[in-house]
Structures are given as structure tokens and as C-alpha cells.
């Protein structure tokens, strides 16, 4: 598929591997995200399945060489199915001592460790809080250590260009990528192509980066540094057109696709917040899709403006993360009682309070369900993988307009930034998003409901004869006029609940991965999908009775869920929180499910889930 620069030495032996997990780590200024992304690209072209995990530092640009300034990118590539970015590392590439310090713990014993020797100097070691160089104290003996002279060799490779040192240093990452590309038999053409496009306006940088990349590649090919290289055969992948996509981009596109299907403008009212801002950024570039993006003064105005746009007949969206969800709560309640479609997107991060803004968590589920005063039930939908964000976003819009209700969409910081190859759907295959504005004044009441969906009519201002008023005070069941009648209030509260129950008709039968009944059922939601799937697969391959269901709809729950739960002896609910879905399932179905809870701002490792399943099977 790919051709490589021709070397001069006799070809080295090639060792075959099913699966490799590699991480690139360096200073924030070292370009590790680009390196990781390009390595991913090369692996995609090599036909592997992949999983990726970017890991940014919290600081914008921490002082060089510090522990908190380390940026990393992990890639899992395989000839088999891949569901996660991988657990422990087969290979670790570090650009400086700080990166070594913060990442070494994840490298497997005897794993490959590539580092830039020149960077292990006094000042850098001190910044990384090493008393002594780890190169000298034997602490790295249990790894396959490759102290490559990345800096020196890059300088050498570019010396003819007479670049300032700063520019040369910026090419180090491509040198490293070249080395690793050779090591794993990756084609470097996709990277060369990327460099060529990215820097087409700056030929000097273009050339320097290309030179560095090739020099790195040739180093592997031409020197004795590595005794062998590795090959990872292409995976069996469904044929079709693919693209690598992050969760945030998928979310943005999902909204746009749904609005287009509905034939309506899309209005996003939002306030920047990590890790949600990219949805705002992405949508703000899509104005020719009739997309309005409004960066509001705060989250309250973000959702308030969206609700105003919903009143006006647009597909209305607001996006945020945990802290912003609190601020939106009052308007969510208003949206619930005026029964207008509106998508509230929470891209969850580590809480509580400001917490760890760049780290993912699943700890806002109960807030999504109960985080406002009064009885205000709303549909809650969760995405389970980066590409799945597209479908979850799309589904959220579809439900919102069909049932005339706000919908809460949950993703998280991991899905947001991680990417995966996505077999692209075509717009024709997407379900319809039907919107019929009411225009007929005959027999019109603002709260006259559709029998099937209990939706009230959506009326665009501008429609003659349908002028009406809505608001947050309790309303008469039919006319929508203010009503304080006690039994009317009860009727309204209950009909809002009944509307939620109606939505179950839109939820397909739950897909069980594994036996339909048996010893152990794992239930998950959101971004744990990959880890759970990988862990369960391991047991299934051993013939163990372990099944997995993954919920897209957290409210209402699927109609068949109670029945399914009753068919298993044990139920395990892994969550990146203290047991939130667990609480819901216990209350709803009185099942003695147990939780596996990790709350470290990091996704589950497959091994963590595997270990727990093993224990449960043994018990």
C-alpha cells in the first residue's frame, strides 16, 4: 500500500505484532499532538484499527520543561478490532525528562523507551525534579532503552538550511515521528502530504519538517540503532469511505445534519468552556449551513438566547461543561414547561467545582436527571464514542422536535478530544427530522397535544391568527393561560412525565452484546463503551458468560431494560463517577447491581474492568 524511502543497508528483520500501544510525550511546545495525529493517520493508511487519546496539560503554555507542561498523545493500533486507546504502553517516546517522569509509570516492563538524550541535561532534570539523571542510575534497566540523539540529528539534518535554532527545534517532533514510523513500518507519505498542505505558505518550514521526518525514518533504516522493525498487519475493516473524527466535531456536524434534514436554521447560544468550546468553534465556521453561532456573555444567556431562537422556530442548541450546566438549570426548567425543543449539551469534565477542567468524568448524570427545582423530567441521551457523538447529537434533535421538549445530551472530555475512524454515513440514510409548524388557527390552543407524542404545537411568530403567550408560571392544560388550579397543576406535572414515557416508543430494543441471559451483565453508558467492550470481548473469547449493554437513552430508560436485568445473576455498572447510573437502576428496578467506580479524570483501562469481571465471575 505504501512505499518507503529506499535505504542502503540490507533490510532488517521484521517482527509481526497484533497490537501496539504507543505514546508520544513532550513539552507543550514540542508538537506532540501533531505527532500523535500524524502517526494515527499513517496507521489508518496502513489499514489498522486505531484508538487515540490526546492528553493536554491544563496550562495554556507552561514554562518549558516543567512537569505540568507535559503534553501527550497515545495511539493504539492493531490488526484486530480496537475499542480503546489501550492500557499500558508497548512503546513510549519522550522528548524531555519531564515527559519521562510523568509517563514512565504506564510503560510495560521491557517496553520500548525512546528518548532524546540531549534533553537530559542539568536544567531540564531539575525542572523535572530528578535529583539524578535516570539515564545513569539504572532505573530504566527494565525497559528497552533507546537514547536517540533527536536534537542533534535534527540539527544535522537541517544544517544546510541555515535556520535559526528555534526553527530547528520545532522540527524535532517530525524527526521522532520518522524514527517511529520506520520502527513500525508505517508509510510516511500521508505525513509528507499533510506537511505539504499545512505549510504551503511557508516553504521553509515545509522543507525543514519534511527533511526531519525523512532523516528520522532513515535513521532507523540505515543505522544499527534498532535490530528489527515491527509490522502490524491491516485489520479487517468494513469497506467504505472513512474519516478520522473527534467527538466534538462529530457533535457539531450531527447538529448541522439534523437541522438541515429538518430544513431549519440552527442556532447555537454558547459560552466558551473547556472541553466544550470546539463545538462552538466548529459551528462558527459553518455559516453557509444557515448556522447562527452566538458567543453569549455567560451560560445563562447562552441557553436563554437558544430558547429565544427555539421560540422563533430554529433548531436551538446550547453547549457547555459542568460549571455551565449549573447556570443553565433555571432556563432548562423554563424550557421544560414552555415545551420547546432545545438541546442542552454537557461535555462533562472532572468535577466538582472547577475540578480538573481538561480531564473527563461521567459525574453529571444525576444532575442531568435531577439538577433543577421542581418536577422537570427531560430526555437524557449519551454518546459512547467519538463518532457516535454524531448520531447522539442527531438523535437528540430528532427527539426534541418530535416531542417538543428540551433534551440533554451528554458526552465528555475524553470523547470530545479523542478521535476514531468513522465509516461515513450518507445523508440519505439518516432518519427524517420532521417539523411541521402549526399554521391553522382553527381549533388552535397552545397546549393542545398530539395524542401520540403528547407534543404541543410549534408555532413560529409571524404566523397570523396564532398569537399566544407562554411563560414559566403553571399553565392551563389546554389553553396555556396561567392557572393556579390545584388539580390542573397535578395534571400538568403528570402529563410532562407521561410525555417522557411516550419517548420509549422511539427507543429500539436494547442490543445485548453476548448471551441474552446468564451470569453477568455489564451495563455502561457514555465513553466507557470502548473499555467495557474490549474487556467483555476477552471473556467472551474464553467462552465465559459475560454480556454487555450500553445505554444511549438514560431517560426514559428502554422499555425492555427491566426484563433484561432480571435475566442475569449479577450486574456490574462501571462508571467514571461514584455510581450514578447505578443509583438510577437500583431505584428503578430494585436490582442489587454493583458499581465499578473510577474517578481519576481518566478513562478505565481495559485491565481494570477485566480484573473486576474476573472477581465477579469467581465469587
Amino acid at each position, binding site marked *: 500500500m505504501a512505499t518507503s524511502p529506499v535505504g542502503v543497508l540490507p533490510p532488517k528483520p521484521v517482527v509481526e505484532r497484533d497490537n501496539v500501544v504507543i505514546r508520544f510525550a513532550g513539552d507543550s511546545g514540542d508538537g506532540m499532538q501533531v505527532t500523535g495525529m500524524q502517526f494515527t493517520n499513517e496507521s489508518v493508511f496502513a489499514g489498522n484499527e486505531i484508538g487515540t487519546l490526546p492528553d493536554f496539560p491544563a496550562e495554556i503554555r507552561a514554562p518549558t520543561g516543567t512537569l505540568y507542561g507535559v503534553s501527550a498523545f497515545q495511539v493504539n493500533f492493531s490488526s484486530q478490532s480496537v475499542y480503546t486507546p489501550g492500557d499500558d504502553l508497548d512503546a513510549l517516546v519522550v522528548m524531555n525528562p519531564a515527559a519521562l517522569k510523568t509517563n514512565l509509570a504506564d510503560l510495560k516492563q521491557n517496553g520500548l523507551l525512546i528518548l532524546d538524550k540531549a534533553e537530559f541535561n542539568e536544567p531540564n532534570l531539575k525542572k523535572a525534579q530528578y535529583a539524578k539523571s535516570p539515564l545513569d542510575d539504572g532505573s530504566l534497566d527494565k525497559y528497552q532503552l533507546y537514547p536517540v540523539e533527536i536534537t542533534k540529528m535534527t540539527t544535522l539534518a537541517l544544517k544546510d538550511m541555515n535556520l535559526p535554532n528555534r526553527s530547528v527545534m520545532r522540527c524535532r517532533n517530525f524527526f521522532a515521528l520518522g524514527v517511529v514510523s520506520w520502527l513500525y513500518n508505517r508509510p510516511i507519505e500521508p505525513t509528507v502530504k499533510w506537511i505539504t498542505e499545512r505549510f504551503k505558505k511557508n516553504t521553509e518550514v515545509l522543507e525543514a519538517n519534511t527533511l526531519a521526518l525523512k532523516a528520522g525514518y532513515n535513521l532507523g533504516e540505515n543505522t544499527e540503532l534498532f535490530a528489527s522493525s515491527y509490522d502490524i498487519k491491516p485489520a479487517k475493516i468494513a469497506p467504505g469511505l472513512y*474519516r478520522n*473524527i473527534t467527538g466534538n466535531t462529530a457533535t457539531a456536524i450531527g447538529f448541522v445534519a439534523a437541522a438541515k434534514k429538518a430544513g431549519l436554521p440552527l442556532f447555537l447560544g454558547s459560552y466558551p468552556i473547556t472541553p466544550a468550546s470546539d463545538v462552538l468553534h466548529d459551528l462558527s465556521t*459553518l455559516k453557509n449551513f444557515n448556522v447562527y453561532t452566538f458567543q453569549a456573555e455567560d451560560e445563562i444567556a447562552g441557553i436563554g438566547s437558544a430558547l*429565544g*431562537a427555539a421560540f422563533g422556530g*430554529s433548531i*436551538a442548541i446550547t453547549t457547555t461543561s459542568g460549571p455551565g450546566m449549573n447556570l443553565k438549570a433555571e432556563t432548562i426548567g423554563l424550557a421544560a414547561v414552555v415545551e420547546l425543543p432545545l438541546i442542552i449539551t454537557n461535555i462533562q469534565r472532572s468535577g466538582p467545582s472547577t475540578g480538573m477542567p481538561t480531564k473527563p468524568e461521567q459525574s453529571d448524570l444525576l444532575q442531568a436527571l435531577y439538577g433543577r427545582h421542581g418536577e422537570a423530567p427531560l430526555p437524557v441521551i449519551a454518546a459512547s464514542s467519538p463518532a457516535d457523538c454524531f448520531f447522539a447529537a442527531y438523535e437528540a434533535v430528532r427527539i426534541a422536535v418530535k416531542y417538543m421538549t428540551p433534551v440533554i445530551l451528554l458526552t465528555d472530555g475524553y470523547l470530545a478530544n479523542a478521535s476514531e475512524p468513522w465509516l461515513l454515513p450518507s445523508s440519505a440514510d439518516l432518519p427524517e427530522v420532521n417539523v411541521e409548524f402549526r399554521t391553522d388557527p382553527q381549533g388552535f390552543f397552545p397546549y393542545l397535544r398530539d395524542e401520540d407524542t403528547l407534543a404541543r404545537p410549534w408555532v413560529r*411568530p409571524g404566523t397570523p391568527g396564532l398569537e*399566544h*403567550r407562554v411563560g414559566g408560571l403553571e399553565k392551563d392544560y389546554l389553553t396555556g393561560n396561567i392557572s393556579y388550579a390545584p388539580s390542573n397543576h397535578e395534571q400538568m406535572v403528570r402529563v410532562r412525565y407521561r410525555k417522557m414515557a411516550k419517548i420509549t416508543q422511539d427507543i429500539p430494543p436494547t442490543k445485548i452484546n453476548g448471551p441474552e441471559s446468564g451470569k453477568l451483565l455489564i451495563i455502561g453508558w457514555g465513553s466507557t463503551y470502548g473499555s467495557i467492550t474490549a474487556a467483555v470481548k476477552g471473556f467472551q473469547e474464553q467462552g465465559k458468560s459475560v454480556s454487555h449493554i450500553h445505554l444511549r437513552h438514560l431517560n426514559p430508560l428502554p422499555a425492555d431494560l427491566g426484563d433484561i436485568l432480571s435475566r442475569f445473576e449479577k450486574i456490574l455498572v462501571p462508571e467514571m463517577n461514584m455510581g450514578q447510573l447505578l443509583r438510577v437502576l437500583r431505584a428503578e428496578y430494585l436490582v442489587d447491581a454493583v458499581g465499578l467506580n473510577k474517578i481519576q479524570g481518566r478513562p478505565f483501562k481495559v485491565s481494570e474492568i477485566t480484573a473486576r469481571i474476573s472477581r465477579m465471575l469467581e465469587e
Partner: protein
Amino acid sequence: MATNAAQKLTRKDFVSDQDVRWCPGCGDYSILAQVQKIMPEIGVSRENTVFISGIGCSSRFPYYMNTYGFHTIHGRAPASATGLKVSRPDLSVWVVTGDGDGLSIGGNHLLHALRRNVDLKILLFNNRIYGLTKGQYSPTSELGKVTKSTPAGSADHPVNPLLFALGVDASFIARTIDVEAKHQQDILTRAANHRGAAFVEILQNCNVFNDGAFASLTDRELKSDTQLLLENGKPMIFGKNKDRGIRLRGMSPEVVTLGNGITADDLLVHDENDPVLGFMLSRLAQPAFPMPLGVIRATNKVTFDAAMNSQIQDAMAKSGDGDIDKLLRSGDVWTVQ
């Protein structure tokens, strides 16, 4: 803004079928009447008009207008109005708010709607008290105000709504008062015809919790001495006998009596386009000065909604109406056979 000239509407067309539930004697009644009165004149149809409010006595307003209406939550009306106006530039969008709703909890949204210059008509009913919650002081209550929540008198300096609006560079700023029907109609009409955020402070008597707050301005005997009626391009004259005026001394205004060599030519001439003058006028305080009523400032700047919509139109003109399949297939794509 789409107008519907097909049939000439009347005041009654703008009266909804809901009972008006303000206290008997409340100043809100007159404001409602004036708004309903000017509606047919300004040439928008009922269906293209939307009233959006927050919470408070004043914010009940939309229920009584036979147009589209949205009674939102406390302080947030400008946000919802912004979303509506930006996405539906064809509508005439009005915001009704109170001194608490607009300047206490909602101060920030008001600030941003004004500085963005969203084409909204914003009516702030200023009764200097919280009516709906039964009589706590508000940000416009005078220092030392004794209320339910300040039995020893309030300790905070009030906000002057006009100064606030000038501070955020609002493009249209005016003040009127509930009892002056004609003045109100004029100002509301001016606001309606302004392109951009039009901010109108309407002094309003809450006869239950803050009765007589503007007595000196409404008293038949006193009012010609206490009201300074501004007219663009006209010298600032007031008084029962039209014999008093405002003159500039250095950069400070002073009250003078005409005659004895002082003529109208010596007086300050109102200029709606001069924000510094507006600032000076807005600071005039009773009893040393009369209270300015009228248009303090009116100026043109691009509206936010227009700018947003032209960005969308430009994008469509440039890149064509977006195609989903193309969007899906953008970025690095590859085919697996």
C-alpha cells in the same frame, strides 16, 4: 421588518383576552395603554410582534398584548430576545423589564444587549422598588430607603439607568413617565423607529409599595418646574412660564432664569448625538435641577442582528448553501476496499 399594511389595526387589536391583574391604580396600566395605542401607528402587524419579559409586576406585560409573547425568568429577557431577534430579524422584538429585573439580577444581560446594539425595544419600568415580591428596595431606590429588607435604610448608592446605558454606549436612550400619555407615546414611537437597541426608562408609580416616588414630577403644580422636556436642537427651557433654562458654566450645568440679559441663546441646546451631553444631562438630579425627560441619546451604529445575518448571507453567497454529504466527507478521508 415585515409590515402588514393590508388592514389598518386599532388599539383594540392589541388587547389580549387576559384579565389585567395589576393593583388598581398601578402605573403599569397607563404604560400598557400607551403601548397598545402606538402599535397600530408604527406599522408592524400583531403576528410579527413579540413581547418578551422577565419576572416582576411589570413583566406580566406580554400576557396583555395580543401579539406573540414570552414571559421568561427573572432578569433573562434580553438574552432570549437576542436569540430571537438574531435568528428572526423579520420580527419586531420588545423587552419589558423592571428596575429589579433589568438592573439587579438582569444587569449583565441588559448591558450586553445594549452594547451589542441588538435591535430590541427595551422598556424598563422603574418604580424604584420590588413590586412583585412585596416591597424590598431595588438598585434604583434612593440611598437610605426604608423597606422591608432595609428597616434601617438602604446603604447602597443607586444605579442611574440612563448613565448605565450611556456607560455601555447604548445607541438610543430615553426617559419618560407613566402619567404623561402623550410624551410616552412620542418616546415609544421614537424607540420603535430606532434601528438598534432602544432603551427607554419609564418612571412608574407603584402605588402599593412606593407610592409617590415621582410625586414631584407628576404633581400638577410642580411638574413644569421639575420636568426638563428635551427636544433635539432646542434650547433647554423649562418652568411654568418657560422662563428657566440650563446653561453651561465651564463643564458644569447650572439653572438660570431667562431675562436680565440671559436669553435662550445662552442655553444649552440639546443634541441627541452627543453622548457627553447625554452623560451630563443624565446626572442632573432633583431638587437642584429639573429631571430630563425625552430622548437623551440617539445615534446610529450597525446592529448585531444585521451584522450576524449578513455574515450568514455572505457565507452562503461565497460557499453555497451547505451540503451535508460534503460536510461529512470534508477533512482527511480514505476508502477501505
